């Protein structure tokens, strides 16, 4: 199928800022950051958002305030109520006709990032069913470019270097990896048939802004830390308001200086760690790749190196005044079985294990040169970055008070 637009034509539309971009998942973590950055850079953007308890436009205003976007920037934004689970994204005429005729590019960020097998129907519904609906819309529209936000973890259960190529025939750690992998094939086939240019972005695990610590989501890398603090707070409450038996059973105690002792081993792989990228890098890298690779391709957006879990343990202990948490290898658990606290912790964070002891590395052979041309490099992760991000998380109640003025 002939492409719907030539490379020079696309570049000209982008340069003139006449290319209107529709973003799905625009109220989510990645989608909202990409949308805000595109708006700042002068692109006309349409956000597809569901109405839930609050109308979509009202929720968007809250988000735009959070980003501190000025009014003149907001004027480039259109909000379209819709639902990717419905045919034609739930739009009805005349809104649908307008969307079909004015959408030049689509950034598909909407995704269900759950790992849990019990959530398979919901994950499949969004990552497969929702993607199909978006692709049907794309084919029916005049869109000439499709930007698909995937994940580096489509690589599945492998170790070693993962290339920026399609991945087929692997086993996966969870339904999220599996559906995102399948999604890449779907999107490749649909775009080829429709003559739509395709770029696939594969970020690793995304956390808050490395410069400010700000974030909109506090799962993924935040979750294991949050659960350790959750258990600590519960024990404190138990001692203060209850019998203290729960704290005693878990072996948690508190020192007179306010520090807490949590006798807990966290399993690590000496060869592995966790690959994380801050949202500011993801946003910049995304736009650099979008603009710098008009012919599309598959690109990893990953950190320069794995962050060791030992570092997380050390940072967490230092910032939150915890003692007793230490990293250990699987061999130690075989020698001394898990205690109550370790069993409890494992119950809440076990699903994240494949990413905490990850031996996968992600090639950036294609992405790095393009990012280098734009002078973009992934910021490092150290105690100061960790501290900024975690203090923001605590300050906002892990998201509960995010929009409270």
């Amino acid at each position, binding site marked *: 199928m002939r492409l719907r637009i030539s490379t020079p034509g696309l570049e000209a539309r982008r340069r003139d800022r006449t290319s209107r971009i529709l973003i799905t998942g625009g109220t989510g973590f990645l989608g909202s950051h990409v949308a805000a950055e595109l708006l700042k850079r002068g692109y006309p953007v349409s956000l597809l958002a569901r109405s839930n308890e609050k109308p979509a436009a009202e929720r968007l205003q809250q988000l735009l305030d959070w980003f501190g976007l000025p009014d003149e920037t907001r004027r480039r934004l259109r909000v379209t109520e819709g639902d990717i689970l419905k045919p034609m994204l739930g739009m009805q005429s005349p809104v649908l006709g307008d969307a079909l005729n004015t959408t030049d590019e689509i950034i598909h960020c909407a995704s269900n990032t759950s790992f849990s097998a019990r959530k398979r129907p919901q994950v499949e519904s969004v990552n497969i069913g929702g993607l199909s609906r978006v692709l049907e819309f794309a084919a029916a529209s005049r869109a000439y470019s499709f930007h698909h936000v995937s994940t580096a973890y489509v690589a599945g259960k492998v170790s070693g270097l993962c290339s920026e190529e399609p991945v087929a025939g692997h086993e996966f750690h969870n339904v999220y990896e599996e559906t995102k992998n399948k999604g890449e094939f779907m999107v490749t086939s649909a775009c080829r048939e429709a003559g739509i240019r395709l770029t696939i972005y594969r970020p690793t695990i995304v956390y808050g802004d490395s410069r400010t610590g700000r974030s909109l989501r506090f799962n993924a890398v935040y979750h294991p830390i949050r659960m350790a603090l959750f258990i600590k707070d519960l024990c404190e409450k138990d001692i203060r308001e209850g019998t203290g038996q729960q704290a005693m059973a878990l072996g948690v105690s508190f020192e007179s200086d306010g520090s807490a002792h949590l006798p807990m081993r966290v399993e690590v792989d000496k060869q592995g760690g966790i690959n994380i990228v801050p949202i500011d890098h993801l946003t910049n890298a995304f736009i650099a790749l979008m603009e710098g690779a008009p012919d599309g391709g598959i690109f990893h957006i990953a950190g320069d190196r794995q962050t060791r879990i030992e570092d997380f343990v050390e940072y967490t202990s230092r910032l939150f005044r915890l003692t007793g948490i230490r990293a250990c290898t699987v061999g130690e658990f075989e020698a001394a079985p898990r205690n109550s606290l370790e069993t*409890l912790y494992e119950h809440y964070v076990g*699903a994240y294990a494949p990413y905490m002891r990850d031996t996968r590395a992600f090639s950036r052979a294609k992405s790095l040169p393009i990012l280098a041309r734009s002078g973009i490099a992934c910021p490092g992760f150290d105690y100061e970055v960790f501290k900024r991000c975690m203090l923001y998380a605590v300050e906002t109640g892990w998201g509960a008070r995010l929009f409270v003025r």
Partner: protein
Amino acid sequence: MCKIDYLGTGLCASGAERHFVTFYPQGRMDLYRGLAEGLIPTTEALVESADTCTLCGSCDKQCHFATGMRPLKVMAALKDYVHEHLAAGRPVLKPPADGVLESLREITGAQWASNDPAVLMTYSDDPSPLTVPRMPRYVVLPGSRDEVSAVVALADKLNIPFAVRGNGGSVLGFVFSDGIVLDMNRMRKLEIDADNWCARVGPGVTAFELQQEAIRHGFRVLTAEPEATVCGNIVCTGIFSTWSNVYGTAADGFIDMEFVDRKGKPFRLSSKDAPNAFAFENRMTPSPGVCTEAVVKLHPVTADEEALLVPFADFEAATKFAREISQRRLALALAVLGRHYMANFISPSAELADRLKRFLPDVLGMPYAVFAIADTFGRDAVRKLAPSVIDGRMIRTMMLSLPKLVEREFEQMARDYEGDSAPWEILSRPEMQVLLQPSPDTIAGAVDEDLRDFYRELYSRPEMTDFVWLNTFRIVSARMGRDRHGVAIILYVPLDKVEVSNRIKNELDRIGEAHKLEHEYGFLTPLDLGKRAVFEYDYYFEQTSAEEKERVRQALAEIMPWLARFSTENPGIANMMNIFSQGCSRKESFLYRT
């Protein structure tokens, strides 16, 4: 609910003594409205009603538990009004007795028949959108079958219409009349015949009172809402509940019934020359007469009965599961509950129920649950068939921790939880007890501060979190229309074709949306080993809004013809509207219409 002492906290003393609804808190609320709207003058009965209220406050507790209302303020306002009225020397109306009233009083005794406008007003209306107020000319409280016979004979002779009232309203207005209203509240015979596994029940006996007596003797009966009279319920629709899974409905519930016919002649259904009330006609028909006694069945109880919930994400899967449980005879009480019932049944306040209604599907992922009460063997079998269950202990934890359960802290934790246990299973973990603090104190935190001591004491009683007890007495089901009045669409449906129930539910959803009404699936209970089921769907409206009432009427005008058409295409559907007054029928007569 102010006529039964369902919390064991005492009844309004004047009501128990005077029996007219006028002397219960419910009646006084009507009187105050009548005065405020200029519908009635200050009469002798109104003054007596106000005088006999001691402002003891028992109505506040009882009413708040079921409806969230605090009637005590209205009682006080009524008393203040009367006090000021008398102090100002204004007149008090004492309507003169006419010949009919004299005759009625000759039958029942002077104190049990009245034409006082205040009394009449308390028997003239209810919040249903399908009724219009009808002021009777007389209200009479017969004390025996012979008195009922005499009153009915008199009405027949004088050609005066009459209606019979049990304990409350009727969605179709059957308890209103321009002539005489017979309030059966004084006929309170209640005798347990253990040898014959039955109880003899007068028409003034409520479901709660009968159940209490049955349990005291080690039995259980099939009853409806606790304040409903047993006889009235049987005659009206036949009794159905979650227990209908094993106890059946309609004629399954009784051994014999005594009636007085429209001429005043008594008869028993078991007589060979009695009218055939066991047959069924698929249209609205009059009742066999005025019920003066029911001989209802008693059922055995075992000490190991417990409740459990099996959560489901969709209605069809839940219904199929309930059907299987029924077919395999594994449970006693059984139902597919929707989020509205679950949330309202266990929440002590409407605000909390509202939050829980969203929390159940969104956070816990359980918009539906199959509710079952079973003995040890049954529960073991259900556990083997179910993907995951919430047992009695977890139900108790959920109930006692509700205000903390719906707080952001737990919600975030449950939402972000990526483990393979279901979110509700986290509830049973020991550390969660610290977070949720399930206790009478915690649940009491959901109500107004001045009621907290009362609720704390109430929820310290084990039965208040025991779903077997709660379901046996059905006291929490009275909460379903707590914040808004409801109109129920009740149908019998074929359960072997689950898609039929699903299509009905979807269409009722659609009509609710189209008419901008609050609408919710209610419950479904399998019958007759899972061959059929009783299905309820509810529309809610603000009873003081004429505009909302009109929208309900318009919705019903769309529903009824659709249901009639759908029923002809799908055998096994029967509309409860057509069963009204035929509650004595054999259930087979309307479930299987060949």
